[in-house]
């Protein structure tokens, strides 16, 4: 083999703490290395050309690049060596940036370590073999999980692009958090008026199949061919028959049910349609409150329903859908302020959350858009907004900024003045974060034109005195403690990952961070991809996001799916397991351990039992390779010989006396 080695400086990123020339020099002495050089930016156009030229000039048959993590640029360099006519698997990378120059301070030690890593890569490369990808058919349907604005956008874009879409929504209506909002910043246009038509489009689009009140139970398969098991949770109402007339809601005697859509502001009936614009507009019985379930008798809804849609015996059902790609758009949840006992831990009726305030202001809300405080129904005159409740707070394990609270608080202060002209709004804030088109102007408008009193400091304590809430905070700009006698306190609760997000991630086999937000493939360059091929992200499931960003990501994910499906066949990754039939004794232990059922029991022409790997099913984990005592089944590109070569390079047992 003729190996070429390229040591990247990455500007000063690597060269700052690694002597790249020395590494290249050392590499020249390695077996089979015929060329070694250091280069400023290996990934740049001239850098890649240099590699291609060297392959041609020196007749290289394999290439090692020592630069950043292979998780970043391995595909880049593989394409480069392919352009030069080599098989792209005749390439290895040594990670001397993330694993060397960025973590070690001592240049001498770093250089020595870089030499080791290059040697390991070269030794592995000596055992590499060209691999060829196979092509397989794909199912051009897409599953979108979550019917908030991001999921709606992704669904509509995919459907418009001609794809069949399966949309699964956890609650009984699509619309997500946006459907609950009164107005949106910075335009103060009606949230439901701009979202409503999109929701109707989803309902009417011939390419979209909507499963509301449903959840993804199980995901099997791989890019191009996923099999999804969906649980259709019982509603006790036959939606084929339900016309959404609402007669059941009028007659239901259990009127004190928790109103999920209104976040507990006001109550609803045990059988209900969550809101007038709901899609699908169908009723569901909340068994926790329904008298038929709690007391065993009632059945009023069943009697009044004109289509006979009520069925108390209904149970969960399951459906299976086959798709080729998945978009997770599961959104976020709001921080539970019970974790702040100093703010009453949810016990004071006049200390409410921002989303409850949205519902209070909404014309379709429980107060028909009149702001009335929950304790006594009076119109509040002094309204205090507290920012960063469950954001930027290490003590409740929420150190991150939720990003949108500053903006919605400015909006809510403006709307408060619109609703109650003689009211005063006070906003306790730490910093105002308003990067975005017309965002900061909007905050200034709240301050300058709507006389919102912004107070820089956190609130330490809220307690009731008479019919007021005493809010004790700090004004750090004045260097003083301050107190506000408030009629109503609105907590700007931050975003946290949706309930059940980690469990879904495990089903999808994607990663999530310690707060439950899904990990994108690359924070800058692959913001809607995941590390699992065929699974994409949209919206706040990846991290807190406002509406424009969520919509943008919904479209971006749709574009990714459409471009994936622009081909009729996909290339399979050849880094999969392969059986050496002459070594296989047919014990089928690999069949037992394969997580994907990718190994099949077969017989050769002499009727000897042999294992065979089904290429399109194998995902390349290598569990089988370790299971096999004869090492007959080998994971390509990570064979025993390749890994042993690396181990032996580091721990050369032959360098010893007998």
């Amino acid at each position, binding site marked *: 083999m003729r190996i070429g080695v390229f040591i990247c400086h990455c500007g000063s990123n690597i060269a700052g703490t690694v002597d790249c020339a020395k590494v290249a020099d050392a590499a020249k002495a390695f077996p089979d290395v015929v060329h070694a050089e250091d280069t400023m930016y290996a990934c740049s156009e001239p850098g890649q050309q240099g590699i291609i030229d060297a392959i041609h000039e020196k007749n290289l048959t394999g290439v090692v690049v020592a630069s950043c993590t292979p998780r970043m640029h391995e595909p880049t360099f593989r394409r480069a060596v392919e352009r030069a006519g080599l098989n792209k698997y005749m390439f290895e990378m040594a990670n001397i940036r993330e694993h060397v120059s960025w973590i070690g301070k001592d240049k001498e030690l770093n250089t020595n370590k870089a030499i080791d890593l290059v040697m390991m890569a070269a030794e592995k490369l000596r055992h590499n073999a060209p691999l060829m990808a196979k092509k397989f058919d794909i199912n051009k349907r897409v599953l979108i999980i979550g019917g908030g604005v991001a999921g709606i956008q992704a669904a509509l874009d995919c459907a418009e692009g001609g794809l069949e879409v399966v949309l699964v929504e956890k609650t009984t209506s699509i619309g997500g958090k946006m459907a609950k909002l009164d107005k949106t910043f910075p335009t103060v246009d009606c949230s439901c008026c701009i979202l409503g038509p999109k929701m109707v489009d989803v309902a009417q689009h011939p390419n979209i199949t909507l499963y509301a009140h449903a959840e993804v139970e199980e995901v099997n398969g791989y890019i191009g061919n996923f099999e999804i098991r969906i649980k259709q949770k019982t509603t006790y109402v036959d939606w084929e028959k339900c016309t959404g007339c609402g007669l059941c809601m009028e007659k239901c005697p259990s009127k004190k049910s928790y109103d999920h859509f209104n976040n507990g502001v006001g109550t609803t009936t045990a059988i209900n349609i969550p809101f007038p614009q709901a899609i699908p507009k169908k009723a569901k019985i909340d068994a926790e409150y329904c008298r038929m379930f709690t007391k065993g008798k009632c059945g009023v809804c069943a009697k009044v329903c004109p289509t006979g849609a009520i069925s108390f015996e209904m149970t969960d059902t399951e459906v299976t859908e086959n798709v080729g790609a998945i978009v997770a758009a599961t959104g976020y949840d709001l921080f539970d302020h019970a974790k702040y*006992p*100093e703010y009453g*831990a949810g016990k004071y009726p006049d200390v409410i959350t921002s989303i409850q305030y949205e519902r209070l202001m909404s014309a379709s809300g429980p107060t028909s858009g009149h702001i009335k405080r929950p304790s006594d129904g009076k119109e509040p005159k002094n309204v205090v907004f507290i920012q960063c409740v469950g954001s930027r707070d290490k003590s409740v394990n929420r150190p991150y900024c939720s990003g949108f609270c500053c903006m919605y608080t400015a909006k809510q202060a403006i709307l408060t003045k619109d609703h109650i002209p003689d009211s005063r709004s006070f906003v306790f804030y730490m910093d105002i974060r308003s990067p975005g088109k017309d965002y900061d102007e909007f905050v200034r408008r709240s301050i300058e034109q709507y006389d919102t009193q912004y107070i820089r400091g956190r609130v330490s304590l809220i*307690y*009731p005195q008479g019919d007021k809430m005493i809010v004790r905070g700090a004004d750090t700009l004045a260097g003083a403690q301050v107190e506000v006698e408030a009629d109503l306190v609105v907590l700007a609760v931050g975003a946290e990952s949706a309930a059940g997000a980690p469990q879904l991630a495990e089903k999808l086999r994607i990663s999530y961070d310690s707060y439950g937000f899904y990990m994108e493939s690359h924070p800058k360059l692959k913001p809607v991809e995941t590390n699992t091929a065929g699974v994409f992200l949209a919206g706040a499931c990846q991290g807190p996001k406002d509406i424009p960003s969520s919509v943008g990501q919904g479209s971006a994910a749709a574009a990714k799916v459409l471009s994936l499906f622009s081909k009729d066949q996909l290339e399979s990754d050849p880094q999969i397991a392969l059986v050496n039939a002459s070594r296989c004794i047919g014990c089928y232990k690999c069949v037992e351990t394969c997580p994907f059922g990718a190994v099949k029991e077969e017989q050769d022409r002499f009727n000897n039992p042999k294992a065979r790997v089904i290429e399109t099913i194998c995902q390349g984990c290598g569990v089988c390779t370790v299971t096999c005592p004869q090492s007959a089944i080998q994971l390509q590109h990570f064979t025993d010989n390749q890994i042993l070569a690396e181990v032996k390079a580091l721990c050369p047992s032959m360098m010893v006396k007998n």
Partner: protein
Amino acid sequence: MSIRISYYPGCSGKGTSSEYETSTTGVCQALDVDLVEIPDWSCCGSTPAHTVNHVLSSALSARNLTLAEQEGFDTVTTPCPSCLSNLKIAEHKMRKESFREAVNELLDQPYGGGVDTKSVLQVLVENVGLDKVRERVKTPLEGLKVACYYGCIMNRPPEVMDFDDHEHPMAMDNLMEAIGAEVIPFPLKVECCGASFGIPQQNIVTTLSGKLLEVAKGLGVDALVTACPLCQMNLDLRQGQINAAQGTQHSLPIFYFTQLMAKAFDLSDAVQGMKRLIVNPQKALAKIGQADKEIA
């Protein structure tokens, strides 16, 4: 089933809070809690010690923990939150080796660690239990409307004190309810009364304790119930000073929770120590049982 536990009365129990001491021991006896006083216990150092030096403060506390340990106890109980805080913090800090060594350097006998301290309140609520308290009640305090004030350090910082909610503690509220009193939630349960500044900075105490009395008055309660000698002294003994400074006319009795328990248990007057209170509690105490009569 009786409980045997090491007991640290604290200096004020032998002086300004003697009624807390008598009612505590009386109530514990009535509930089969055997308080074994630490022999020859010494002052924990209170706030002054830790404001001077943490090693000194912990040394003064640790001496007492060692004495309890030698008696074969792993838990000490004390009525006083200030003592509680010092003993608990000493144990907490001394889990760090370098700190423990520095403290032991000051001591005749080194402290080995591992002795926990609980407030009497915690022992009554957690070890004795509200059911047993309810059983022991002879005269329920029906008709008496109280608010419970816990003081600032009984539950804080939560990672050290490890008892009840640190902003809205309920232990005393539940206990008062168990003996029949009507309990109004006090919004400033853990707000500071001014602590030991009564002597050097009287205005601090009159302002902060004045605030507490003001809020309590707004709730329409007959009395405040406390668990801390310093809080009780600031609110009771200095109520006149507060009235003078704030221009108010408060006359709100300030009980120790153990006094009201003694009352409900029908323990002797000497145990109850009601006469030792500065603000006359008779009017409030007269309400007990009145509610029933009104209905009748």
